[in-house]
């Protein structure tokens, strides 16, 4: 089979530049809006440390660049590369388990001498791509054997990452894979069956959890049980958000954030800084941009022209949705503390690069469409 990237016809009047640059304007502007809001909150969370903001800007620059680069790659090329990406990722994960760098009590980093990176980040994209690649060539909805194969494709990397241990990422990757299967038409009966299975397996999962992970679940259920230990984070972040009220205490005026009461306030708990200083309406603004991004992603999925891109776009969008809902749920005390950053806003991490690469894929899918006559 020869790859012929046929020159697509331009949607001449309206979207010319978007197609030429392979960017999607609604997505891009929402992302930029969130990034700006994030930098503003980060400046405050870092206690007015401009260098922190500068380092984040550099990271954002890399992330946006990678998004633009990925957006140039046609979906067919991505589809072809998918198995190789997945296999490489699995090998890297193996390498990490055997000889990865230990950092913060978990083995997540692979030192390639030139760069240190987390293969689990790569898998955030590789897993949904792989499942979509696998299911794209089959008749939908997939039969049981196809489902079993898909489940294996999801479970193997997920368990390897959970073993590091990095529960947050493992869950994200699993949900990315599951979204693909669900979009591909997973039967309701089977869905119900799996739900029951997971519920029944809960005690088993509990058994395999690390002590600190169990503690987090206990803490979520009753943070006051250990107000100075593991409950401290949640109590302080609830105080920060709650005391912010409707309009917030004002930028740089959050006492919980500025006086060090709020832990990890520039990383995982940065949402509490937003809530304290900008109040409910500040959060609403962020949620609006987030919602636009998710809705736009789903639209791209619906408008996509083949099964692979449809499944992939839908999964990437919903994963992003899960991403911010899990973080905000955790910071507001609805979910256990799983150590996920607030996407686009939390300081640091390779995760932002992966995230933006994912949006690059969405843009690629949207802008490499062949416009069909209606």
């Amino acid at each position, binding site marked *: 089979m020869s790859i012929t990237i046929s020159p697509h016809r331009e949607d001449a009047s309206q979207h010319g530049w978007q197609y030429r640059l392979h960017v999607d304007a609604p997505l891009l502007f929402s992302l930029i809006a969130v990034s700006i809001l994030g930098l503003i909150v980060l400046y405050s969370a870092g206690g007015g440390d401009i260098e922190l903001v500068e380092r984040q800007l550099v990271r954002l620059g890399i992330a946006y660049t990678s998004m633009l680069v990925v957006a140039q790659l046609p979906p067919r090329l991505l589809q072809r590369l998918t198995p190789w990406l997945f296999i490489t990722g699995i090998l890297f994960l193996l390498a990490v388990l055997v000889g990865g760098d230990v950092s913060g009590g978990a083995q997540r980093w692979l030192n390639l001498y030139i760069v240190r990176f987390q293969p689990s980040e790569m898998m955030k994209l590789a897993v949904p791509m792989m499942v979509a690649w696998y299911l794209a060539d089959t*008749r*939908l*909805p997939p039969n049981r054997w196809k489902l079993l194969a898909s489940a294996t494709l999801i479970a193997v990397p997920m368990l390897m990452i959970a073993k590091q241990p990095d529960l947050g990422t493992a869950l994200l990757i699993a949900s990315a894979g599951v*979204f693909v299967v*669900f*979009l*591909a*038409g997973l039967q309701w009966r089977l869905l119900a069956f799996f739900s029951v299975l997971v519920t029944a397996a809960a005690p088993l999962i509990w058994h395999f959890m690390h002590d600190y992970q169990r503690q987090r679940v206990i803490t979520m259920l009753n943070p006051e049980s250990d107000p100075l230990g593991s409950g401290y984070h949640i109590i*302080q972040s*609830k*105080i*920060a*958000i*709650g*005391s*912010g*009220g*409707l309009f917030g205490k004002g930028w740089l005026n959050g*006492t*919980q954030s500025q*006086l*060090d*009461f709020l832990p990890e306030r520039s990383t995982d708990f940065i949402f509490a800084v937003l*809530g304290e200083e900008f*109040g*409910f309406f500040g*959060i*609403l603004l962020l*949620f609006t941009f987030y*919602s636009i991004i*998710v*809705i736009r992603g*789903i639209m791209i*999925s*619906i408008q996509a022209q083949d*099964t692979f891109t*449809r*499944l992939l776009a*839908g999964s990437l969008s*919903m994963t992003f*949705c899960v991403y911010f*809902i899990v973080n*905000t*749920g955790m910071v*507001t*005390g*609805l979910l256990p503390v799983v150590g996920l950053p607030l996407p686009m806003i939390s300081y640091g991490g390779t995760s932002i690069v992966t995230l933006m690469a994912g949006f690059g894929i969405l843009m690629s899918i949207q802008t490499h469409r062949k416009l069909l006559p209606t």
Partner: protein
Amino acid sequence: MLGQVHLKDHLFESRLITNRAILLLIIGGLLLSVLLVRLLYLQVVSHEHFTTLSEDNRVKLQPLPPNRGLIYDRNGILLAENLPSYRLEITPEEVDDMGATLSALENIIEIRDIDRSRFEKLLARKPRFEAIPLRFHMGDEEVARFSVNRHRFPGVDITAGLARHYPQGPLAVHALGYVGRIDEKALKVLDSSNYRGTSHVGKNGIEKTYEELLHGKVGLQQVETTAQGRIIRVLSRTPPVSGSNLYLTLDSHVQQVAEEAFGDFSGSAIAIDPNNGDILAFVSLPTYDPNPFVNGIDYDDYAALRNNDKEPLFNRALRGQYPPGSTVKPFMGLAGLETGVSNENSRTYCPGFYMLAGKDRKYRDWKRSGHGTVDLNIAITQSCDVYFYDLAQSMGIDRIHDYLQHFGFGRASGIDIQGELPGLLPSKEWKRSRRNQPWFPGETIITGIGQGFFLVTPIQLATATAALANGGHMLQPQIVHAEQEAETDDLLPHQPQRLETITINDQQHWDHVIAAMVDVVHSARGTARGIGKDSPYTIAGKTGTAQVFGLKQEEKYDAETIAEKLRDHALFIAFAPVDEPKIAVAIIVENGGGGGSVAAPIARAIMDAYLGKPSS
């Protein structure tokens, strides 16, 4: 056909994925709604609750301890002051390994056992975020050594404060007392809200009696702090009110002369102004340096003070109860005259002993050969015992008791220092109620010369002497002359308190007794003639000797020192100048021997020191 199937599948799949995608979007929207409800609950419904918690986090109330009032003597010489002092504090919360920190600190600064044990006690009691003092009064060198190494000790800090210091050291320590760290016993008594932030409290003496005045009122400041407790800014501040300064009636110069005049003897001396009850000197010897007590004295040093045979910690002036011996004779003589039992010309023959009719026991005079025929003047001048045996016998114990109690014997003088003992003026009633025994006639006889049950404290003897000097005004002795409010600098003088005015039946009786006391010092045969010869002013005095046995029940039997310890106490009371008395003194020299030879010169030295200066 094939293509048709494919096309059909394609449409079906497209619709399937679209439906599922929209379904997911709806689920996402529902989750977002749950989040929004949660946020509304936190930020609207519970907003006030969390605002309160946030304020509690942010704002802390900090006590501002007041500066303790200073203590001056009557001439403005500083007796108690507050000096800057550095202390080392540890905040347990910020220390990972307390044991390692302490042992590392030990290499840099001195940590005594007492520091360590006090620290450990506080460590167990105080919350972990509160700084706990480890060392007080660090020297400059130690401060410097720690500062250089500070980076090695997170959670350890030096704070500057004020510490009590007594610049005169041991001078008048029994009057001044000292402050010490608040212990658990004191915590129960003190007003804990006013003592937030205060570490020391008066333990005895004036420091304890005037604690409330000296301490002042605690201030408060609301501060905004970080989670680590670092103060960002002060939100509001109620400044503390410093304690009042006290001006004492004591004269440091007189005090010092008095203390030195005792030489190595133990004992007590009180000098009082008979015009107003001002205490001019308040001596209890041996004395000790109060400064080590301020921040906790070493166990060894404290044991040395406690176990010292001479009992330096014992406040003899207030709590030493001694038989008055012959110093009671002027009061007895006056009692005889004023009650009409005797007159100026009553004579008694002294063969060197006295016997009750029908009894075998001889009550000996100190002079074995006897004084011959004596009147009151000779009996006082030469201290004839037989005269007063006879007088006491004639008066009976109850009349003696009733008259002498006007001079304050048997009850606390009311001096403004806590802990005074009342002495003992015996009576039939007392013996019946307290000892459940009848009174024996022989006990009356020895009471006449100040022996037996009769006990006085130096402060009582001095106030009684002052009453003799000023014509019968019983004054409440006072050691604080004036208090000075810190804010206004206004001096609030303490007014002299007259407790009682003794009824004078005949002024000549008083004059006669005082003339006899002048003869004690200034006549050729007076028992204290040694101090009268070169005196520029006229002194009225009376010597005394008190037998020691049974004096102090708690005294231990010690073979080596028994000889010295069994020696008589030497006593002397006096006032001067006779015409216009300005000072009255009472001296007790423990195991000093003769009142005239040992105690009287001390009185003379005190009077010289006071009267030699221009009157203040």
